[in-house]
């Protein structure tokens, strides 16, 4: 496998402009001759499908939800970053770029990250033009707030529903193209296989979730915008349907999977209440702008929060990181919460929680101002816990939230398989080992609106068009493979449900490959995962049949992939003998307990090549070369 990142030459700030000039164009009249498959309809998928449709390509867009508007991007609460410098507080494209690279612990690709910061500016213009109702000041101009890990106010937001508003904007643009006939939408349709023709990605196999019918679709290029894999941990803040299947099945067809061990734990989620828990709910990190995080200084303190006087409280983020305080980056805040809980100072019935207290902010600003800023989040908290956070501090705990790893892509967002493009959370390229708050929405939209539409044209213009028919043997073989897998799942007729397997796998990963990892734990996980997988294939029970609407079957197929993917995740975590960003190895930490990077030996992207289910994958390294920034030890003190 040869990994060429295809980073354009020249100074960092000129790379994208130069590349745009050098890329070949497809004649407007010829665009309709090219078919594109887009899988996923979140921010990246919907924006890409809509924009490609506007340009004149023939697009087929697939999503497993009943409507493209329900993709999980919708749940993002806090906001979207852009280097507009509307607040005149010293922001710039370069600063956003530098913050993102530094926040990613110098494990991101410099050129991609710089381009992301450049395009952030266009995204806001685009969204406003679509009618996204961003928050405004009384003068009618756009409002901003600062957000986790940033010292400038560059985050644009729409109450606590920024993801929803941006997604509705992209969805509306997509709907306009569906009406115009340039995009054909396939809701309730799940991609189950990738089809290669002459070693190029030229189609997919899908299952119609209503009829169960398995069919093929061919195109000149396949775009995956299928999100992240947090749900391999069973409990995460991701929607129930989020899964790794499309990305993982592409990996099994030869696409390299990069940095799977870079997983992000979000510091502000509502603590787990019991075994029945089906997912975790995130409270936007923007709450940390006005909330103060604390626990009691005493271990096992069972007093109610209001009974603990000020001198007996430990505002540990403010104490440890005086300049960033409660806004310290996500990985640092999460680990700090785990530490105080490990010390026996956690709060709430389970002891797995810390307080996020708004009393000071309410005193300073009034309850009404706080309600205006976070009203819906406080309501959500009350709905779930039955507690009023205006009166008593919230309880929060970290949870799996986002995955920086994903399919390997070059600067053009094309994987090592020609014709296969990967956008948004599903790729690996822009956030390094840790993503800053309000940057996921930015990346999804940058990829879909402003990067792919250019780079896919260059691909079409520089390769010989190949119009495969779905009757070709490659498609028939891929369909057969997919049907066999489905039949195999249905024919086990064992005793254990998919949920029970998924829960066991998730707990194993959370314990051994979660917030803190070490060699012994990872080796143990790597022994137990294959055993669990074997049991899965011998003792699983899936009800119903293939030829019907069968949610049990959909779920079983996704968990079957997790059973293999979990091993890849742990293999990557074991091989990266350093700590960086979301990947914290307890053996590699500074005297102060911070992540200790090893730039000399690990300044590379780990891209894994599939060899077979029970065979070790092969590691390929893409060296990370920093032409512009100087790698430093992250310090938020």
């Amino acid at each position: 496998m040869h990994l060429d990142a295809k980073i354009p030459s020249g100074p960092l700030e000129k790379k994208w402009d130069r590349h745009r000039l050098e890329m070949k164009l497809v004649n407007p009249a010829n665009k309709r001759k090219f078919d594109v498959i887009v899988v996923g309809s979140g921010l990246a998928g919907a924006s890409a499908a809509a924009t490609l449709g506007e340009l004149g390509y023939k697009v087929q867009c697939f999503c497993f939800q009943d409507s493209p508007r329900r993709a999980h991007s919708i749940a993002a609460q806090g906001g979207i970053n852009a280097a507009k410098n509307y607040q005149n507080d010293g922001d710039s494209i370069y600063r956003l770029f530098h913050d993102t690279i530094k926040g990613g612990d110098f494990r991101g690709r410099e050129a991609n990250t710089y381009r992301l910061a450049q395009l952030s500016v266009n995204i806001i213009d685009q969204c406003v033009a679509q009618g996204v109702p961003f928050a405004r000041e009384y003068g009618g101009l756009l409002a901003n707030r600062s957000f986790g890990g940033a010292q400038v106010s560059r985050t644009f937001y729409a109450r606590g529903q920024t993801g929803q508003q941006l997604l509705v904007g992209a969805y509306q643009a997509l709907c306009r193209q569906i009406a115009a006939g340039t995009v054909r939408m396939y809701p309730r349709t799940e991609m189950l296989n990738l089809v290669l023709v002459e070693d190029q990605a030229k189609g997919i196999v899908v299952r119609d979730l209503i009829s169960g019918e398995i069919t093929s679709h061919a195109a000149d290029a396949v775009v995956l915008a299928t999100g992240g894999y947090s749900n391999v941990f069973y409990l995460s803040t991701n929607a129930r349907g989020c899964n790794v299947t499309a990305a993982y099945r592409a990996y099994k067809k030869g696409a390299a999977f990069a940095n799977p061990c870079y997983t992000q734990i979000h510091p502000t989620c509502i603590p787990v209440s019991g075994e029945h828990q089906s997912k975790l709910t995130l409270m936007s990190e923007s709450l940390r702008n006005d909330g103060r995080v604390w626990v009691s200084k005493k271990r096992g303190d069972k007093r109610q929060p209001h009974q603990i006087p000020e001198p007996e409280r430990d505002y540990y983020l403010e104490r440890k990181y005086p300049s960033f305080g409660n806004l310290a980056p996500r990985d640092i805040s999460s680990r700090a919460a785990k530490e105080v809980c490990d010390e026996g100072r956690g709060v709430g019935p389970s002891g797995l929680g810390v307080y996020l207290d708004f009393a000071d902010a309410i005193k300073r600003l009034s309850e009404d101002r706080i309600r205006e800023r976070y009203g819906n989040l406080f309501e959500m908290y009350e709905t779930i816990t039955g507690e009023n956070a205006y009166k008593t501090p919230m309880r929060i705990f970290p949870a799996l939230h986002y995955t920086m790893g994903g399919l390997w892509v070059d600067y053009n967002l094309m994987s090592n398989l020609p014709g296969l493009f990967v956008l948004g959370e599903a790729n690996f390229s822009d956030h390094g080992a840790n993503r800053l708050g309000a940057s996921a929405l930015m990346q999804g939209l940058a990829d879909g609106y402003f990067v792919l539409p250019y780079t896919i044209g260059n691909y079409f213009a520089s390769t010989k068009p190949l119009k495969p028919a779905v009757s070709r043997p490659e498609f028939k073989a891929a369909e057969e493979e997919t049907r066999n897998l489905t039949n195999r799942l249905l024919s086990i007729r064992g005793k254990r449900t998919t949920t029970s397997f998924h829960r066991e796998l998730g707990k194993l990963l959370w314990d051994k490959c979660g917030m803190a990892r070490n060699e012994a734990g990872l080796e143990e996980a790597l022994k137990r995962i294959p055993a669990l997988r074997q049991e899965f294939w011998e003792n699983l029970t899936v009800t119903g049949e293939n030829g019907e609407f069968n949610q049990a079957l959909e779920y079983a197929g996704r968990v079957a992939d997790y059973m293999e993917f979990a091993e890849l995740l742990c293999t990557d975590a074991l091989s990266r003998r350093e700590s960086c960003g979301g990947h914290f190895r307890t053996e590699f930490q500074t005297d102060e307990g911070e992540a200790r990077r090893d730039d000399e030996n690990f300044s590379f992207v780990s891209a894994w090549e599939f060899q077979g289910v029970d065979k070790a994958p092969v590691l390929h390294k893409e060296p990370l070369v920093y032409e512009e920034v100087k790698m430093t030890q992250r310090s938020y003190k």
Partner: protein
Amino acid sequence: MNLCLKVWRQKYGKTPGAFREYRAKNVIPDMSFLEMLDVVNEDLAERGEDPIAFDSDCREGICGACSLVINGVPHGGHEGTATCQLHMRHFHDGQTIMIEPWRARAFPPVKDLVVDRSAFDRIIQAGGFVSVSTGGTPDANALPIPKVDQELAMDAAACIGCGACVAACKNASAMLFVSAKIGHLGLLPQGKVEKNRRALNMVEAMDAEGFGSCSVTGSCEAVCPKKINLSFISKMNGDYLLATLGF
């Protein structure tokens, strides 16, 4: 607590359905309604019986996938709450709970509690957008928008497209959903340009899908998980009237 559930089961969209009784045992007050159903389904799966099909995804009240009529009320009747955010602390031991799908001609059944809401997508396709393509847009701050207009537009834009408004309405009218989109876009200068065309096209699409008329009972507003205000319907009627008169 222990509960008796009467759940609508319907194997295929075109086969007749019926209520079936299930016991939900050891329900914990902190469970969400859907987590309670997960536990029931887990029991059914272990016994090799077909689990109850229902839609859900984000489980935090924003994606709009969940869609249950609980004891006759869409989303269960707690103000501003979608089914996934309804918790079992609002029920009591020994209670019987009726669970049904959205029922409307324009939402054909798929299986059990799952219906086809693609009619909503088609209404948006008829005009629920601003006709701008990617690129070439002016600076985001080039056009100041009064905060009150933006806030009101945001109230309308909060709609999650779940369809509870249709399920609650005795006429299965989609007026609240359609008026929320028309309100959201029509209140902002970016969307005002196409206000008339949008109102005409979306209302026409709504009628073509087989949704009923509005008789202003307000049942839609009462069940809306995002508390979309009835006043958007009168605004839509105004837009539509002016559009038909050619203003």
